C-alpha cells in the first residue's frame, strides 16, 4: 500500500458519490423525472475510481452508455451531470446528449458514446494526437466485455499497439451484455487474454477492489506515459442493477447476485480504510452524509434548472 492517506480518502469519497448519485438517479427514474433510459454504474465504482485516481486533469477518458461513474471519477460536477440526465439547459451538453452522452472536454472527458465499442478507436485517436502533439498525456478508454466482440475493439487496439500509443484500455467485465452471459458469446474466459493478439500486456484485476484496480492501472498508466504503449486491463466486476431502466435482471442466478453483493467494492474499501485506521467509523459516516447532501444539492440544481428552448434543437449541428 503506497498510497497516501488523503488520496485514499478522496477515492472513497468518489466511490460514495457515484453510488449515491446512481441510487438517486434510480429513484428519480421511478418518479418519472428522468426522460429516456438509464444504465447505472452502481457496483462498478472501484473500476472508474481506481483508474481515474491515476490520471491528471489533462489526461483523457472515453466513456460508454454506462458512463456516469466514469465522468464523476474523472472530476465531473454532480450538478451538471444530473442536470444533463434530466434534460436541462444547465447540463454538460445543454440537454443535447442525456445520460448516455456526457462530456466535459475541459477536464479531458472526451464523451460517452452509446454505440458499443465505438469509443475504442476514438481513444486510440486521442492517443495518436498526444503522440503528434508531443505531450505526456494518457488516455483511459472504458468499455464493457460486450464491446470486446466488436470489430472496433480489434481495429482500435491493434492500431494503438502497432503505434505504441499512450492508451489504457479498461474492460469492465460485468459478465453480462444486456442479458447475454459472457460464456455464451466468448470462448475465452478473460477478455485480457485477447491482448496477446496485439502483442500488448493483458492484465486481470479484481474490479471490486479499488486498490487492486489502482495498482494495475498505475503500472499501465506509467508505461503509457513513458511511451511504451497500451495495456489491456480487464476488471472483473458486477452491476448491482439490471442493464437499463427497470430491467429486473432475472437472467442472473440469485446465488451469483448474492455472491457479488457480498463483494461490494464500497463496503470492502470502507472496511479496509477503517482497519488501516485511515478513517474512523464516525468519519466514514460523516463523509457519507456529506455525499448524500451533495447529491441532493445536485438534484435540486437540476430540478431548478430550466429545459432548453425548443429551437435550441437546431443549434450545434455545425460550427
Amino acid at each position, binding site marked *: 500500500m503506497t498510497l497516501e492517506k488523503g488520496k485514499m480518502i478522496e477515492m472513497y469519497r468518489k466511490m460514495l458519490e457515484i453510488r449515491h448519485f446512481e441510487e438517486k438517479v434510480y429513484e428519480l427514474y421511478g418518479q418519472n423525472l428522468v426522460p429516456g433510459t438509464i444504465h447505472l454504474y452502481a457496483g462498478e465504482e472501484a473500476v472508474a475510481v481506481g483508474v481515474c485516481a491515476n490520471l491528471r486533469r489533462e489526461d*483523457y477518458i*472515453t466513456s460508454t452508455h454506462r458512463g456516469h461513474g466514469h465522468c464523476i471519477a474523472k472530476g465531473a460536477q454532480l450538478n451538471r451531470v444530473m442536470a444533463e440526465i434530466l434534460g436541462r439547459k444547465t*447540463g*454538460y*451538453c*445543454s*440537454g*443535447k*446528449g442525456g445520460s448516455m*452522452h456526457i*462530456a*466535459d*472536454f475541459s477536464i479531458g472527458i*472526451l*464523451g460517452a*458514446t452509446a*454505440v458499443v465499442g*465505438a469509443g*475504442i*478507436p*476514438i*481513444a*486510440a*485517436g*486521442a*492517443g*495518436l*494526437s*498526444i*503522440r*503528434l*502533439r508531443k505531450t505526456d498525456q494518457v488516455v483511459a478508454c472504458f468499455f464493457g466485455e460486450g464491446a470486446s466482440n466488436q*470489430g*472496433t475493439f*480489434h*481495429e*482500435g487496439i*491493434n*492500431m494503438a499497439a*502497432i503505434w505504441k500509443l499512450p492508451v489504457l484500455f479498461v474492460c469492465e467485465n460485468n459478465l453480462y451484455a444486456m442479458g447475454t452471459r459472457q460464456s455464451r458469446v466468448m470462448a475465452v474466459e478473460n477478455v485480457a487474454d485477447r491482448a496477446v493478439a496485439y502483442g500488448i500486456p493483458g492484465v486481470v484485476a479484481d474490479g471490486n477492489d479499488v486498490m487492486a484496480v489502482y495498482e494495475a492501472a498505475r503500472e499501465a498508466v506509467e508505461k503509457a506515459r513513458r511511451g511504451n504503449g497500451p495495456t489491456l486491463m480487464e476488471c472483473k466486476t458486477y452491476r448491482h442493477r439490471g442493464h437499463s431502466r427497470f430491467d429486473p435482471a432475472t437472467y442472473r442466478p440469485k446465488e451469483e447476485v448474492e455472491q457479488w453483493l457480498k463483494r461490494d467494492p464500497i463496503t470492502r474499501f470502507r472496511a479496509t480504510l477503517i482497519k488501516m485506521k485511515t478513517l474512523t467509523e464516525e468519519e466514514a459516516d460523516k463523509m457519507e452524509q456529506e455525499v448524500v447532501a451533495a447529491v441532493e444539492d445536485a438534484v435540486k440544481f437540476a430540478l431548478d434548472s430550466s429545459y432548453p428552448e425548443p429551437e435550441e434543437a437546431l*443549434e*450545434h*449541428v*455545425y*460550427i
Partner: protein
Amino acid sequence: MREITYRDALHDALREEMLRDETVFVLGEDVGRYWKGAFGVTKGLAEEFGDERVRDTPISESAIIGVATGAAITGMRPVAEIMFGDLSALAMDQIANQAAKLRYMFGGQIKVPLVIRMPFGAGVNIAAHHSQSLEAWFMHVPGLKIAVPSTPYDVKGLLKTAIRDDNPVMFFEHKLLYSVKGPVPEEEYTVPLGVADVKRDGEDVTIIATLYMVHKSLAAAEELSKQGISVEVVDPRTLVPLDKQTIVNSVKKTGRIVIVTEDCRTGGVSAEIAAVVAEEAVDYLDAPVKRVAEPDTPIPFSPPLEKFVIPDENRIIGAVKEVVH
C-alpha cells in the same frame, strides 16, 4: 495559366496545408512512402513530412475514421483517406454516428476538424465494390459537409477550405478525374464551401451536374450548341451546404432543368436537387424536371454492361432535347 492534373492539385493542397499548419496530418491505407496512395495523391508527402504525419494504417476503415475523429477532437486536423468510397460502408458508424454527431451530442463543446477523402465513380471496369457513387448516403447525415469537386482548380481550393473548416467534411473525388488537367494558379487561393460555379453560360436549359458528370455535361453542351440549343452547366461543387440560390437563379433564366449525376436515381443527389427546384423554382419551369442517373443497379463489371448504366453524353443530349421540345 499553368495547367496541372486534378491529382497534382490535390497533392499541392495537402502539401501546402501541411506546411501551413503542423496539426494537419494524413492517414490511410498505403498513403505513405511505399505506395503513395492508391491513386498517387500523396506522392512525396511522407518523404517531406515524415511517417508520423503521413501515416500508413492497417486495413481498418472503421478505426481509420475513429482514430482520425479522436485526433480531431483533441487538437489535430486529420485528413483521412478511404481508398475506395465503397469501403466507407465499413466506417459508417464512425462517420455517421461519431464524427458527425459528437459536436451536437456534446452541446457544442467541441469542433471536429476532420476531412475524409475518398474516390467514387465507375468507368474503369472494377465492378460493384469499387465503382459506386454514394454521396447521397452522407447527405442524409446532419453534421457532415460534402464537397464534390470536378476540376483541378476546384479540388485544390475546396480541399484547402475543407482542411481549415472546423466540421467533418466528406471530400468526394472521382477516379476518372485524377488525370484530368486544368488551369490552377501558382498563388494561394481557396474555394468556399456552399458556392456553386456556372461552368458554362447558356439560355435554353440548365444542367446541374457533379464530379465527372460535369465534364460529360460540358461535352454534351458543346454538341448541343452546334444544334442551336444553348445549355447552362451549373456545378454545385458542394452538396452540403448546397448553393440553392445559384440553382434557382439558373432555372429562372432558362425555365428548364436536367440533373445529371452518376449515383443511383432513387433517393439520390438528383432527387434532392429536384426537390429544391420543386420547392423554390417550380413557377419558373416550362418543362418537367428531368434526371439522368444510374438506373438503380449495382455497377456491373463487363465493359458493355458498365457503359450501359453510367450516364453518357448521348443520354444527356437526349434528356436536354426532351425538355426543350
